[in-house]
């Protein structure tokens, strides 16, 4: 017997809350069930999830977002990848670029051919075969166009945006689609005898019942943790950073189409260019650095004048033991946190929403569905975790206690195996549903200084001269394609320029 969900409450109105509410509103159109967001203006949002990865397009498509309008409304810029500075060692730099690297030949990934020629000292730097990397370096951008086999036909990109404006934009859309917003702070969570959540009582005395609760209350996990005591798996031994200081700064140059992550003595600093400002932050480990020192490093490394007081953020890297427990689903920071190094926070929000639609419950809340949902979420989190740990662990830095710890710490077995295998044979082994592709693994492992001793034997099938010619051809096509691209700034000016705020 189906017992339809009659009402869903989304608790918390940051990026996660409004992404969830907008998706539910768009899909369910308030006809299937009532959707209510409860948020309090007294409780701030973390609001630093400002960079995304190309999978965000799936969410945008789901809610039918007009991309240029969204760009204008959120002061967004385009993103073609992430530049990692000083990670392998001080003075080093590499791109983890979106999209293709070179061109696969004879069913074999390009990078095997490149490794072969590099071993012979006859390959140009990888960036010169990678459209996104080269475009980042030259600050160019365009969307894909119909250009046959040209790399211009397949440009993968994402966005940098102001998370506060993004939430506001989604709120407007969600309310148009019938989502109700209630201002108020939760003072009591009432449960049924079986432990399921029955209602939320707000400070104004009103009580709000629902069948299904989506906890977007951030790190504290008001429903999933404080009420349901779900438990948290702490990963700080692998991802030891536990603090961040965030501050916006004035724009001093045209925006770059990439995020920059610069390694610091006990963590790293992000720089995210938006149209109206630059988002900055310093993620660090409090065991190895004080807040004052972290703030000083951040402020010293700003390109422009700080536009607000630095804001401290505390967190513990890890994940909930269950993302969905009884009639409560944790989305965003309430579900787990893995720091913004690869811009995966909003992706995980979107992945949770997508799985929610696949496993959409009725009031019986079948435990087998919930178990499978949790299994899939754990898989996503664990694979992303390993990819993040790679950045810290595979380093030559020995200039601080923090890096000595990261370099020598034990890592999860699967990551250790991946690294060993790459070192031995230049191969990357992954399951179908892992989020990061073999190209991502390749770029980061190589960028972090892991040098493979071999490559796929099939790369030897081309005679050296023939392969050199082909690689040169690919390099030349990438060069010409990048030359064709307009500057990032002029593309924004022509398509999605936002109004001035500051």
């Amino acid at each position, binding site marked *: 017997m189906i017992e339809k969900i009659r009402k869903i409450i989304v608790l918390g109105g940051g990026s996660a809350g409004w992404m969830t509410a907008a998706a539910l509103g768009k899909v*369910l159109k308030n*006809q299937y069930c009532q959707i209510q967001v409860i948020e309090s203006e007294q409780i701030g949002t973390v609001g630093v999830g400002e960079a995304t990865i190309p999978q965000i397009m799936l969410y945008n498509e789901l809610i039918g977002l007009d991309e240029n309008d969204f760009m204008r409304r959120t002061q967004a810029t385009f993103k073609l990848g992430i530049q990692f500075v000083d990670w392998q060692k001080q003075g080093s730099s590499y791109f983890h670029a979106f999209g293709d690297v070179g061109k696969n030949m004879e069913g074999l990934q390009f990078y095997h051919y490149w490794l072969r020629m590099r071993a012979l000292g006859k390959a140009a730097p990888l960036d010169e075969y990678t459209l996104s990397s080269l475009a980042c370096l030259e600050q160019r951008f365009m969307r894909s166009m119909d250009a046959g086999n040209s790399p211009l036909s397949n440009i993968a990109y994402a966005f940098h945006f102001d998370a506060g404006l993004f939430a506001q934009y989604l709120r407007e859309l969600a309310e148009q689609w019938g989502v109700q917003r209630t201002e108020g702070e939760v003072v009591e969570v009432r449960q049924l005898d079986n432990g399921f959540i029955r209602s939320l009582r707000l400070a104004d005395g009103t009580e709000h019942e629902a069948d299904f609760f989506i906890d977007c209350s951030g790190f504290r996990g008001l429903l999933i943790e404080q009420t349901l005591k779900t438990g948290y798996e702490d990963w700080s031994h692998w991802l030891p950073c536990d603090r961040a200081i965030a501050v916006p700064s004035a724009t001093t140059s045209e925006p770059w189409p990439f995020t920059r992550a610069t390694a610091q003595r006990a963590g790293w600093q992000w720089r995210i260019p938006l149209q109206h400002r630059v988002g900055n932050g310093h993620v660090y480990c409090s065991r190895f650095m004080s807040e004052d020192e972290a703030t000083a490093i951040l402020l010293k490394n700003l390109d422009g004048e700080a536009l607000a007081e630095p804001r401290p953020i505390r967190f513990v890297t890890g994940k909930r033991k269950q993302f969905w427990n009884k009639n409560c689903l944790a989305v965003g920071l309430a579900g787990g946190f893995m720091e913004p190094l690869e811009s995966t926070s909003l992706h995980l929000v979107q992945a949770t929403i997508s799985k929610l639609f696949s496993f959409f419950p009725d009031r019986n809340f079948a435990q*087998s569905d919930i178990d499978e949902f949790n299994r899939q979420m754990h898989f996503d989190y664990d694979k992303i975790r390993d990819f993040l740990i790679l950045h810290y662990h595979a380093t030559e830095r020995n200039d601080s206690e923090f890096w000595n710890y990261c370099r020598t710490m034990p890592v999860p077995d699967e990551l250790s*195996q991946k690294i060993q295998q790459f070192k031995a044979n230049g191969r990357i*082994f992954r*399951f179908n*549903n892992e989020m990061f592709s073999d190209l991502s693994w390749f770029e980061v492992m190589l960028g972090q200084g892991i040098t493979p001793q071999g490559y796929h034997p*099939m790369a030897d099938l081309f005679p050296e001269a023939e392969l050199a010619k082909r690689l040169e051809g690919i390099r030349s096509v990438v060069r010409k394609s990048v030359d064709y691209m307009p500057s990032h700034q002029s593309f924004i000016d022509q398509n999605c320029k936002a109004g001035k705020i500051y």
Partner: protein
Amino acid sequence: MQQPLVFIGHGLWLQMATAIVAKHLQPFGYPCIAIELPAKAKEPAAMAGGPELVTLCQMLGLPLQLVLARAQATFSLGSQYQSGDSSWFVPFGHYGLNAAAAEFEQAILQLLRLDANSKAEQFCIAALAASQGKFALAPANRPDLAEALSYGLHLQTAEFAACLKHYNQQLGVTFLSSQTVEMKYSAEGQISTLQLDNGTALPVGYCLDCRTEPAADEASHTVQLFCAQDTTVLLQQPHSSVLQTSWGWLVRLPLQQGSHWFSQCTDPTLELSHFRQELQQLTGLSEWQHSTRQQPTESQPWQLNHLRFGQAAATLDCPLYNGLNALQYLLIRWLDLLPNQSYCPATALMYNQHWQQFQSEVQDFLWLHQHPLATKTGQAFARLGRVLSTETDAIKAGQWFGLMQGLGLKPELRSMLLAHRTDTEIHQGLRQVQQQIARLVTAMPSQIDTLNRCLQQLSH
């Protein structure tokens, strides 16, 4: 010169493994030696391979026409199931016209819920073509159709093995025969040499072991096998047939000149007379061959330089799933990782983990046939109408969906992503797809015409 790759085993599995590996590695200077051992049990006379087999033939450069001619092969778009009064089709290809169409299967399930006369097969080009005896190779300019019309082959096992042996000989593989083979190990536990019954000691780089017989001390269970040959020619059926019996399933594989029946029972308490009686009732055939075998277990097929691929593939081999498909997976995956060529324990470890995942997905698929609601996959489908995401490509999405809806699993819950569409909108959308599929199938040739054309091409 690289260390030799030595293959041991017999029949089709040995030839297949040798062909795949020799084709790919001989150019790198690996000498390939195949040691043919006597078969302890007779190989089944016929087999069914999925789309991977066709891809493999292309990869080897074996012309399809040649395989069709030599191995008396026919095409297979999937399997037609029959259980009591109900029947359904499990295709290799996908439902609808676009594999990536969001929620298409959900729309089908929604229609089935409202309209008892509708069938999922109406929205599957492979199923519709199979029901009309039609088969065509998708044109090169229609990659979308190639996926929808993914096909496998039914083959005579011995003839296909002979074809592959000839291929291997042309590649320069050395063939040796021996009654026995004894492995000698190095101090590190690697196989250093293989000793044949004539005293020859062969040095080994990698030993690709295609034997299927489990050792006596291994956890294995006994299965009873039945097979029979039928002279009825079924060229109007470009598919396998699967009938439900009181103990499991009976599979029929049509070849160009007759067909072959196979069944397997894992219940040792059932009496032979019971089987024979029911098999005769179902097929009209009285001549059934019976044998028993041990179903092995193998979760760590890559151990140092010993690759126990035959043993691993045999864990899944049964009338509903040919172990050759698993053997192919093991080989291709190994080639993809192979080693340049220093042994990396992490690689072997990850390889074995992937194999366990593959094995578990196939076992789940097989288990669904017996107890659909005892599997997580079946439970999720019965609740949500969704196929759980898989980590390997062992079973195609169309196969999961086709089997579970055919077994009568009806989802309790509707797709939320279709919640904003009315039933009328969904019906209209589906009917349009149905009409397009019907038009495409009408224009397709029969399997007989396609087979004749292929065989004529060979004779020219």
